[in-house]
């Protein structure tokens, strides 16, 4: 059995984002990058399947992105994946379908039995690439999987619904998107990092085609006005009541 995991290079979120002057994209100065969290869980799911099922021959990691995304692929290799493919694109288009086409072409060629995605990319928040790839390849697709079993050529996945669990069965090959809760990703060991340097990583241009959706404008939400302290004794109450009536208009 061959498993492909599609991962995305995303900015680390604990920063204050800025928008470029032309308002078209996030200013990349000072950003740090890592593998999208949900994709980490997808990698972990694939590695656990490999450890559990003797018949998993290979876990390949595919990423579409700039050259620098090799770093993220190496991390997946350090965690234990066997092989990496970078579909090189100088910038990642906003059109999910364009991305899905490029990925689908690569996946089709690889002949994978199972294709895993993270449920959502934490930067673009589209959660469409996985299902679109399934559609393009005419494969069954289960999204938001938090529990997974494969036996023979059949898979069984559990998805979380609001207040319930849905259990799905599907034949292989199939495309799944992985939710959190399936597992915590392993941190690569130094041994893994060393080994990853020697694992194969193919770089080829991404076959993106035309992007039909583009970003028109980006804007940060308006900053919240600072709170006001009127005083710390009962003397402040009349003023508070007045402001609640006249300014906040909630009384």
């Amino acid at each position, binding site marked *: 059995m061959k498993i492909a995991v599609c991962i995305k290079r995303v900015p680390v979120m604990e920063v204050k984002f800025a928008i470029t002057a032309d308002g078209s994209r996030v200013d990349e100065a000072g950003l740090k990058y890592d593998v999208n969290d949900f994709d980490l869980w997808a990698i972990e799911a694939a590695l656990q399947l490999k450890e559990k099922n003797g018949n998993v021959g290979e876990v390949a990691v595919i990423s579409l992105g700039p050259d620098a995304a090799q770093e993220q692929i190496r991390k997946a290799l350090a965690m234990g994946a066997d092989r990496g493919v970078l579909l090189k694109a100088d910038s990642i288009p906003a059109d999910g379908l364009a991305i899905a086409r490029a990925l689908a072409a690569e996946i089709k060629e690889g002949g994978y039995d199972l294709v895993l995605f993270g449920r959502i990319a934490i930067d673009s928040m589209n959660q469409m690439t996985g299902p679109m790839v399934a559609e393009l390849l005419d494969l069954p697709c289960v999204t938001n999987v938090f529990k997974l079993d494969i036996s023979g050529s059949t898979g069984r996945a559990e998805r979380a619904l609001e207040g319930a669990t849905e259990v799905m069965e599907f034949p292989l090959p199939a495309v799944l998107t992985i939710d959190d809760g399936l597992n915590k990703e392993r941190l690569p*060991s130094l041994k893994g990092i060393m080994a990853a340097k020697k694992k194969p990583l193919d770089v080829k241009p991404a076959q993106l085609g035309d992007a039909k959706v583009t970003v028109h404008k980006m804007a940060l939400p308006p900053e919240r006005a600072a709170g006001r302290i009127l005083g710390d004794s009962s003397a402040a109450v009349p003023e508070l009541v007045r402001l609640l009536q006249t300014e906040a208009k909630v009384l």
Partner: protein
Amino acid sequence: MGVSNLVFAVILAVALGFFARSAKRLKRWLNIGHEEVRTDHPDQRTKNFLLIGLGQSKILRDPVGGMMHALVFWGFCVLGLGTLEIMIQGLYTPFTWDVILPRFLYLPYVVSQEIFAVFVLIPVVYLLYRRLVIKPKRFAEVSGADAVFILSMIATLMLTLLLLFVMELRTGASPDGRIISGLLLPLFSSVSAETAHLVARGSWWIHAVLILYFLNHLPGSKHLHVLTSLINVWFSNTSGPGRIGAMRPMDLEAENAEQFGASDVEHLSWKNLLDGYSCTECGRCTAVCPANTTGKLLSPRMIVVKTRARLTEKATTLDAIAASGGTASEAQTAVLAKNLLDDWITEEELWACTSCRACVTECPVSIDQLDIINELRRDLVLMESRFPDELAPALTSLERNGSPWAFSASDRAQWAEGMDIPTMAELVEKGEKADILFWVGCMGSFDDRAKKITVAFARILQAANVRFAILGQEETCHGDPARRMGNEYLYQMLAKGVIETLDGYNVKTIVTFCPHCFHQMGSEFPDIGGNYEVIHHTDYIERLLEAGRVPLDTEHGQRLKVAYHDSCYLGRYNEIYDAPRNTLKRALPIMELVEPPRTKSRGMCCGAGGGRMWMEENVGKRVNVERSEELLATGADQIAVACPFCMTMITDGVTGAGSSVPVLDISEVVASRLLPIVSV
């Protein structure tokens, strides 16, 4: 040469032969460990040998037991001369030192033998009494049978020696100067000269043969320390040479390196294994271990004892296989397949360690328990990616955000808003320079309580007109938490980044209030190419106060009782005990400084070191609660700390105990005494 001389010669030859064989084997086993140079700085090593070894300075930290041991040790040194005389007498009966020594040396020799026999006998009787009747808690963990056997043997040696002296006096075959025998002689007045001669010969034989037996008992016993501990003290680095407490450097780019850290004895150095030989299981380390004394599984003594046990197990198996022509039986293969990690020492023990160095500081023979723990942790993390779940967010955040907490670097200097504090980058832009860099640290940048310390220290610097700057957004963690957790890779990545930033600004002097930053940058950075003068703020403030540069209120203020809690990384790691206390005294001239029972080099850890800050503490009593109760029991009106980690832990403990005693950083105490800045 009589028949008895011949018999003795045979016994001596057999005993020495056996001993040589054991000694050679023990030395060979050390080679199972990897190489490590321990012959640098012979002057410092010799000093340690004289002070800690011969001078017994560390064992004397326990005044009663320590003095008893020191007497036995020094007694043995003196009695060694007598032993040599007895051995020669065995081969040539008429021999005495009198033959060689001039009279003025021989007389003191004779006197010393008797006196020291008594000096040894008294403590040995006390130590036996302690083992059998008092039974201190620290002896409970390991079997004391060998100790009792050895003590009884020493007692027998001393009794036979004294008996020999008295009987020699009785028969008149005694040199001048047997004062104690003279006092004892009346007890034996009824003994005939013939009987006395027989008893003397009997005592001589028992004594001589017992010594040779003792020599051969040692190699397989915990009392091997008699032979190895002095050597161990010379080779040890725990009191220097080198920077005390600095973790072992690790070359991650070494060609063909396949093992990082240690999972078995061959991954430890020969010195770690010599530590095993030198441990006599006294348990002083475990008795001061904050993890052990609050009910955790970790016992530093057992770390060393288990290391020795695993070495013995593995080495004897390897020897047996070699002896049988190289083919291993199934049982032998099973023994070799075991590991020190997991099969002897568990993860739970290793993660309980707060890296406080209390065990290392206490060990009378300079064993480095912490080095073994650190090496095993490195294997867990670097080789197997095995660590408590709670550590994952901290490690991930260190990697992603350059801080163990997931805060944005852009918020690093939020505390400084409106304080007119320049960043290094701003100074460079203006073409100006700073005298010192104030390294704020992650706690000081992001933790709400610690940010108040940051502000207080910055106010002191401003009041003293110090030209300082911060790095602001450019500051990142130097990786010390990752290093202590065993993640050397992440540590080196972060540390090298920090060194690059510092060198980019040509930084020479760094001041910081976090003892972990202080230790890492001052004591461990040199190993990876970062050389700076790093000063802890307690030290720096004291210098400013001494130079009269800080305008303090001259009103005496209240008469307060203040207890100071020593930080491990300031105290035991860097031996800074006086600066914080002196600073307090200067800032609060009429305060009364009170000390908790465990203080200075004996200070008890707050529980946050060694990555414990990021782990849950579910077993036993919480370390910080134990420590806070001890601090509160001093009756102090205020508790002073000098570390943001201690601040968190002790504040939690004090609050948890329902107390409202304030916990303040040294800089906050000083800042509260600053004269208001008069604007002209």
